[in-house]
C-alpha cells in the first residue's frame, strides 16, 4: 500500500546572524493512511521543524534545502499558493503546542472555527455556525452554541486545545500533525486531550503524526515511532519494538529517563549526561558520540548510516545490531 505522506531525505537550513545551520539533516519517513507515527526527541532535535516543513509553515529564515515531501503522491514542495491553501486545513491539518497563543485573542471562537469550514467546504454562514457548534460539542465543550460567541480568553488551556483540535479535524483531514499538543497542559488534562485526539482521528480515519519529547506518550498513542537526535532520525520502528528492544543508545537513554511508577523513586531522576551538539557547529562522526556510553573510535570518525534491522526497523548506530544488555 502506498504511503499517504512520504518524506524523503528532508534537509532544512536556517539562516542565522552567525551563519547557516542545518536543523534537519536528511530525515525520511512515511505515514500510511490512518496510521499514527510518533516523532520523539529533545528540543532542538529538529522534530518541530520537520513538521513545519511538511506543512510548509517554516518562517522566512528557514529553507528546505533538499529532499521531497509527497502527499498522496503529489509533490507538496512544488504546490503553488492556491494548491497549498486548498490542501492545508482541508487535507492536512495541524495542532500546535501552546493553546494559549495559537488562537487569535481578538477573534471570536466561532469565527475561528467557521472560517476553515467556509473556506474549504464552502458552507454559508448559518451552516458553518451550526457545524461549528456541533464540532465544539463533539470535542466536549459544554454549551457549545453559546460559547461560539466568546473570545479565547474565557477558555481554559485544555478547552482551547479542544477548540484547536475541533478546528484541525473540522474538514475531516487525512493527516493531522500534532506538535507537542499536550506539553503545555496540566497532567490530568493531557490524558483527556490525548483521548480526544485518539477518538476523533479514529472516527475519521485520519493519520496522525504526533510530535513529543515524551516517549511514554508517543509509544502509547502511536503505531510507529521515530526517534530524532540532532536533526536526524536515529531509530525507527514499531512502538513495541522501540520500547521493548531499543537499538540506539540514545533511545535506551530516553527510556531510562522515564521514571518508573513502581518501586522507590531514585534520589535523582536519571538524565542523559552531556548536551546535544550545538546547532550550526560542524562535527564529524556520530552526533551522539560525546554522550554515548558505547562510543568507540569509529563513532567519532564516521557518522553511522541507518541500518536495516529487519521488520522495517532502522537504527543509525555502529552498534545497532547489538541488543541492550
Amino acid at each position, binding site marked *: 500500500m502506498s504511503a499517504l505522506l512520504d518524506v524523503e531525505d528532508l534537509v532544512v537550513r536556517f539562516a542565522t546572524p552567525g551563519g547557516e545551520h542545518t536543523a534537519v539533516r536528511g530525515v525520511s519517513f512515511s505515514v500510511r493512511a490512518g496510521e499514527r507515527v510518533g516523532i520523539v526527541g529533545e528540543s532542538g532535535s529538529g522534530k518541530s521543524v520537520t513538521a513545519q516543513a511538511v*506543512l510548509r*509553515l517554516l518562517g522566512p529564515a528557514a529553507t528546505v534545502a533538499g529532499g521531497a515531501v509527497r502527499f498522496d503522491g503529489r509533490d507538496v514542495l512544488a504546490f503553488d499558493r492556491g494548491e497549498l491553501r486548498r490542501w492545508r486545513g*482541508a487535507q492536512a491539518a*495541524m495542532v*500546535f503546542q501552546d493553546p494559549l497563543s495559537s*488562537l487569535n485573542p*481578538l477573534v471570536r471562537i466561532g469565527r475561528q472555527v467557521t472560517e476553515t469550514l467556509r473556506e474549504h467546504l464552502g458552507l454559508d454562514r448559518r451552516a458553518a455556525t451550526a457545524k461549528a457548534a456541533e464540532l465544539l460539542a463533539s470535542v466536549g465543550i459544554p454549551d457549545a452554541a453559546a460559547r461560539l460567541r466568546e*473570545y479565547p*480568553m474565557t477558555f481554559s488551556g485544555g478547552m482551547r486545545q479542544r477548540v484547536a483540535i475541533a478546528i484541525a479535524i473540522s474538514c475531516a483531514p487525512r493527516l493531522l500533525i500534532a506538535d507537542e499538543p499536550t506539553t503545555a497542559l496540566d497532567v490530568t488534562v493531557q490524558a483527556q486531550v490525548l483521548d480526544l485526539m485518539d477518538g476523533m482521528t479514529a472516527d475519521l480515519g485520519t493519520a496522525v503524526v504526533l510530535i513529543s519529547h515524551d516517549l511514554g506518550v508517543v509509544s502509547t498513542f502511536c503505531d510507529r515511532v521515530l526517534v530524532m537526535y540532532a536533526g536526524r532520525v536515529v531509530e525507527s520502528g514499531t512502538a513495541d519494538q522501540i520500547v521493548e528492544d531499543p537499538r540506539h543508545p540514545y533511545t535506551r537513554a530516553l527510556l531510562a529517563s522515564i521514571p518508573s511508577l513502581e518501586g522507590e523513586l531514585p534520589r535523582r531522576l536519571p538524565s542523559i549526561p552531556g548536551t546535544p551538539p550545538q546547532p550550526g557547529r560542524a562535527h564529524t562522526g556520530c552526533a551522539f558520540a560525546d554522550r554515548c556510553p558505547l562510543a568507540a573510535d569509529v563513532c567519532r570518525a564516521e557518522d553511522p548510516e541507518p541500518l536495516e534491522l529487519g521488520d522495517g526497523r532502522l537504527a543509525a548506530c555502529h552498534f545497532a545490531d547489538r541488543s541492550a544488555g
Partner: protein
Amino acid sequence: MTPWVLRRLGQMVLVLLGVVTLAFFMSYAVPGDPARLIAGPNADAATVASIRHQLGLDASLWSQYTGFLGRLARGDLGTSYALHGAPVSEQLALALPTSALIAVGGVLWQVIIGVPAGIIAAYRPGRAADRIATLGALVGLSAPPFWVGLLLIYYLAYRLSIFPLTGLGDPMWWYLALPTFTLGLAGAAWYARMTRTQMIEVLRTPYIQLARAKGLRERTILLRHALRNVLTPLITMIGMDFGYFLGGVLIIESVFGLPGVGKLTYDAIDQLDIPMITGAVLCAAFFVVVMNFLVDLAYAAIDPRVRNRR
C-alpha cells in the same frame, strides 16, 4: 464599566483644571504688560492704568484667578484683549472648523499612506518593498513639513497651477489637499514604522501560523487576524494625533495661510492676550484629553481582554 467611565471623567476634569491653571499663571509670568501693549507706545501712564483697571489686571493675581475660574465654570472664557473685546469662545469657534478639517485630513493621509506601507514592508521584511518603504519613511521623517509644504506650493500650486496657492476657498477640500497632505506625510512615516514593527511581531505568533495551517487566504490572514492585533497601538496614535492637531498646527497653518487655532494661539502669545492664550491652551488640552478617553473606549471595543479587566 460605568464606575470606570465616571472615574475617567473625573480625571479628565482634574487634568484640564491643572492645565488651565498652569497656562493662566504662566501667561502672567511672561515679562511684558498687556495694558501697555494695547495702549500703544505713545500712551501716557494714566491711559495705561485705566486700561489695566478695565481689564481687571490691577486686582491681585489670586482674585484674577478665582474670577477666571468662576467665569470658566459658567462657560465663559473671557474676552480677548487684542481683538477689541471679542469673546474668546467666539474666536475659537471661528478657528476650530479649519483646524478640525486640517486634523481630519492630516490623520487620514497618515493612515492611508502609513498603514499600508507598514503592512507591505512587514509582509516580507528585508525585501525590496520593505526597503523602499523604510527609505521612504526615513525621508518622510527627515523632511521638515514647512519645507515639504513650500515645495508642494511651488511646484503643484505655483508652477503647475493644479492646486490653489494658499488660504481657503471653495471647494474646501481642494484648498486643504496640500496642507493636509503635508501634515500627513510626516506623520505617515511614524505610522509606517509602527505598523511594520507591530505587524512583524504579530506575523510571528502561533495564531498566525495556525491561520496559515488552516489554509486561509493571505488577505484574510493579514486583515482579519494580523491587523486586528495591530489596531490597538494604531488607534492610540490616531487618537493622540487627532487631539494634538485639533489644538492647531502652526507650521501648516502659517505656510498655507490658514486661519486655524494654531495661528490664533500664535497671535495671542505675540500680543500677550492672556484670555486668548488660556482659552486656546484649554481648547488644545480638552481635545487631547477627550481623544485619550475615546482611545481607551476603543481599546475596550477591540480587545475583549481589556473589557474584562474593567
